[in-house]
């Protein structure tokens, strides 16, 4: 639709400029008016005809600018060929749908390879320049026709650059969102190690948002696994601030309300200090030095006994 409108405007512009150029180019002007309908097909035909040469020039300028260094020359060759064909097709049909799909596919393939946004935009702009140069060369005798050609070419070329850049950034953002979700999921695992015994290992910095999420996952996990004992292991947490320490105490209380007792293991000396200074009632907190001791205590609470097999029976 937009392409149609662009062409329409070009036509009217062409008609008025033809009017001003006057008598000598009258024949050419009449031809020019027709030319506008044929301009794009002619342009496309020109680009198709010189496909190999233009594509090579483009590829040369890509390697000259040290773009796409993450890809092998063969890959660059095949991708540039596809991009070139897609590019010409958009110029011909005016529809960017196929290109958008291709750009998304391409992004999906090259993002994991470490191709940057500026490289992608850079190569599309290079192609635009290479093609524009070739048009200059072809039409440099007749300035009026060159103007019309560029009128038809430029908006389409800009739209293509836009589409490719937006598709690439979209794809990148999608990957980032996916990874963020994955990290969030993984950062607070609630694991069942025995019937009705959950373990919640916390590693890394515990900020307010993560503490909140930890509470939600823990309480949901208690319900889902019908847990009676939960071991929260904070060996991997160096320090917490006062509000997070408070949150931790509240989480323990909330778990108790749901009928599960909580054992906290591996408290660092700094966290212990923070917990004492905030002045909450810690008498109900069951804390044990390390994770091993915590699991043993939990097993005792649940009535499990773990015994080692005798040497002889283990061998047999």
């Amino acid at each position: 639709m937009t392409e149609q409108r662009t062409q329409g405007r070009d036509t009217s512009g062409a008609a008025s400029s033809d009017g001003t150029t006057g008598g000598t180019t009258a024949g050419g002007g009449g031809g020019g008016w027709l030319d506008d309908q044929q301009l794009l097909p002619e342009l496309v035909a020109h680009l198709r005809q010189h496909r190999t040469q233009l594509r090579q020039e483009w590829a040369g300028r890509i390697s000259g600018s040290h773009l796409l260094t993450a890809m092998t020359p063969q890959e660059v060759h095949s991708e540039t060929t596809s991009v070139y064909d897609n590019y010409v097709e958009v110029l011909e049909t005016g529809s960017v749908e196929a290109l958008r799909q291709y750009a998304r596919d391409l992004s999906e393939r090259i993002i994991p390879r470490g191709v940057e946004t500026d490289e992608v935009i850079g190569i599309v702009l290079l192609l635009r320049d290479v093609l524009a140069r070739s048009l200059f060369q072809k039409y440099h005798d007749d300035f009026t026709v060159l103007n019309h050609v560029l009128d038809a070419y430029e908006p389409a070329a800009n739209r293509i650059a836009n589409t490719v850049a937006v598709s690439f950034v979209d794809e990148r953002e999608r990957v980032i969102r996916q990874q963020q979700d994955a990290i969030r999921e993984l950062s607070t695992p609630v694991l069942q190690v025995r019937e009705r015994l959950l373990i919640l290992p916390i590693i890394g910095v515990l900020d307010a948002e993560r503490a909140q999420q930890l509470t939600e996952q823990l309480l949901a996990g208690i319900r889902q696994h019908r847990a009676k004992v939960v071991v929260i292991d904070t060996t991997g947490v160096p320090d917490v601030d006062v509000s997070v320490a408070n949150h931790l105490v509240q989480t323990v209380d909330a778990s108790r309300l749901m009928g599960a007792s909580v054992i906290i293991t591996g408290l660092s000396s700094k966290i212990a200090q923070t917990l004492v200074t905030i002045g909450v009632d810690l008498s109900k907190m069951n804390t044990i030095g390390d994770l091993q001791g915590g699991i043993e205590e939990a097993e005792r609470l649940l009535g499990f006994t773990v015994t080692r097999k005798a040497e002889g029976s283990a061998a047999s």
Partner: protein
Amino acid sequence: MLRFQEALVERIGAERCRGVIIDVAALDVLDSYGAKTLGVLAEMARLRGAETVMVGVSPEIAFTMVRLGMSVPNMHTALDLEEGLLMLGRLTGSGPGR
């Protein structure tokens, strides 16, 4: 709520009951007044010789209660009705089926 309290304490005496289970699984919200009433109820039941177990607390209610500082110190808690019955059995020294 007050009538419920009175009726319950009456019946604890009349039936010589040893344990009370309060199931709050159907509650969507529990305000501070409700929590306090439950605490009072548990204390009254204890004075009349019965232990109280609150069961079926949802994660949302559990955390809201803690966040608002609504504690129920005299109350035992268990995950659901089944767990509550087991707990009462242990607390009163008799199995659920006796």
